[in-house]
């Protein structure tokens, strides 16, 4: 029993010591933070006029001057923060002006030093700032840190910094390939990171789509701008429809249908795909194309097994003027499946409701009245006063 008591006493002493230490740390953190915040506010007010000067003359050809007053460490910190805030929100030659100003102030070199020496979040802070400042010379150091960084969030931040700093497309290729190798699959986030780069990445994306590596293909597809895909790209995308991975097929079809309407034969091929996601995407796209020839295809799609295909087919039909509207009424009245009928009726009702809120005497009201007439002719109005 005695040893138990001894153990207990020891335990109590250690706990008390830890508690006291914890409270001291807390108080120090709190007061230090308060002091720093107040200092920063004071300095921000002091440099307000200078920042206004920078903002007013960002578009001049001449480079901006550094402040005439002597700058202490915290002055530099405050200026850096404020100028980075601005750099994040502007683009084009203004960013270049700011980059030149950053270099004049000696900030990138400072951050590069911090990058190489400090651990943890402070290193990531430096990486982030270097990216925001667009300091090209930091790229090699950033790459070596990317190798060393083990936590996920940190890797993406460093990857972004590389994207914003480097002026060479091959660096971007290396960065993305490294991230794809060592991080869990996240094509969209990588595409987002890639999008931060001021360089033209289209050649890189082309390369990846044709590479045969599905992970890189997914990154490329997430990074492609939806409109204005040229023919070679579209051809590559069609090849990807044969890929083994479902996600690749889905992303490929999403891009293919995002532009101009594909030919009727191609539509038939796509709608015969075993993936419901592919069929649904195509059904949705037909609503954007509004080509009367597609109406029969959509009507057939209303018999699809997948609820989502039917849903998008119905929505597309109501977008196709009075003809599409009538086709949907046809489906709603003829189909034996309750689910199909419900979906069709729901979309018809919503379309009529939207028409009503558009108002009388406004352009297109003839068509709207036409739709209403069609609707009445198919469905007995007496029972449904719901409209």
């Amino acid at each position, binding site marked *: 029993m005695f040893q138990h008591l001894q153990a207990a006493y020891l335990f109590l002493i250690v706990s008390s010591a830890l508690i006291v230490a914890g409270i001291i740390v807390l108080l120090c953190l709190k007061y230090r933070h308060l002091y720093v915040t107040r200092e920063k506010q004071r300095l921000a007010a002091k440099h*307000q*006029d*200078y*920042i*206004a*000067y920078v*903002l*007013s*003359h*960002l*578009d*001049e050809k*001449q480079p*901006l*001057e550094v*402040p*005439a*007053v002597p700058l202490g460490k915290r002055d530099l910190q405050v200026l850096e923060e404020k100028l980075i*805030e*601005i750099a*994040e*929100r*502007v*683009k*084009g*030659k*203004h*960013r270049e002006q700011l980059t030149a100003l950053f270099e004049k102030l000696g900030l990138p070199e400072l951050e590069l030093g911090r990058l190489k020496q400090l651990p943890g979040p402070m290193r990531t802070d430096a990486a982030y700032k270097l990216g925001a400042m667009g300091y090209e010379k930091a790229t090699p150091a950033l790459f070596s840190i990317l190798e060393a960084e083990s936590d996920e969030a940190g890797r993406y931040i460093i990857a972004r910094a590389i994207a914003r700093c480097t002026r060479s497309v091959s660096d971007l290729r290396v960065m993305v390939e490294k991230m794809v190798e060592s991080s869990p699959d996240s094509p969209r986030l990588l595409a987002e990171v890639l999008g931060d780069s001021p360089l033209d990445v289209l050649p890189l994306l082309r390369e990846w789509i044709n590479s045969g590596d599905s992970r890189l293909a997914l990154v490329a597809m997430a990074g492609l701008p*939806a*409109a204005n895909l040229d023919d070679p790209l579209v051809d590559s995308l069609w090849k990807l429809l044969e890929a083994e991975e479902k996600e690749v097929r889905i992303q490929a079809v999403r891009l293919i249908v995002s532009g101009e309407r594909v030919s009727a034969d191609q539509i038939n091929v796509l709608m015969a795909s075993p993936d419901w996601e592919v069929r649904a995407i195509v059904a949705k796209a037909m609503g954007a194309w509004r080509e009367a020839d597609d109406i029969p295809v959509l009507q057939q799609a209303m018999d699809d097994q997948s609820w989502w295909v039917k849903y998008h087919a119905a929505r597309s039909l109501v977008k196709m003027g009075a003809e599409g509207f009538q086709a949907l009424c046809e489906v709603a009245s003829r189909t034996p499946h309750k689910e199909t009928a419900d979906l069709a009726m729901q979309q018809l009702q919503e379309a009529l409701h939207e028409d009503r809120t558009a108002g009388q005497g406004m352009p297109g009201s003839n068509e709207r009245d036409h739709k209403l007439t069609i609707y009445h002719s198919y469905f007995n109005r007496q029972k449904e006063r719901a409209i």
Partner: protein
Amino acid sequence: MEKKDRRYMRPPGIPEKLAYFIRYYEASDLSCGMIAIRCRHSGDLEWKELQQFLATKEPKQAAELFYEQSSGRLVILLDDVSLAQTHYTALAIKEYLQSNEQLAEGICVASYPESGDSMEAILWEMTERLYQTAAMPSAIQVVKGHDHKWERRPRLLLVENDPVIQQILSVRLARHGYEIHLAENGMEGKEKVEQVQPDLVITELTLPVMNGYQLIDWLQQQHETTERCKIMVLTDRRLEEDMSQCFRRGVADFLTKPFSPVELDWRIRRLLVS
């Protein structure tokens, strides 16, 4: 405006010596930096200390000072400097004055010919800005030239939650002499529109309380009772539907962030002129 200030809406009579310099610069190829300061003197009507300060700071720069005691206006002409350089020098001057407890009640910088066609007109503009109630009286105002003669100052309403964007835009747009009003969310934007009747509303889409779309819808409904003001959208949202949704609602222009400030300047000017 106080009655006392209204007296100074017309430029105070230009002293002979200043007029001489104006003729000199307008005739030559040189540019001339102009700084107008509204302040009280400390007994030294010649501002010798300030001249000395300027001489030590920028030995190669020739500067001429003109002070009118009646209006409290100090005009400094700097030989052959651009607007940016003038502004930069004005920073030093402001700090010097403040450290000597000669509070400047307003500073305005300009440069001929960047800021306008004639120095007298520039001076007029500067004086007007100094003696009107300014939004930020302690800030240094910049006169940026424009070739369009406004009947009255265009009123702009900026509906934006991000304080940095607010700062960027208000500083840059004030240079052109626009009257800038700010709102932090859609509801405040709505109130300000009713209060101020702006010519152009620049709005973000993701706003708290009442978002940009709702504000735009409300604005378009207003055209029945008031004159429709133009709407420009400057937003973080970069989805394709946003652009089409905005234009469908009758928005005049659509820009995404990060944006090019000079492009924004031009688009605003185009909207205001037409």
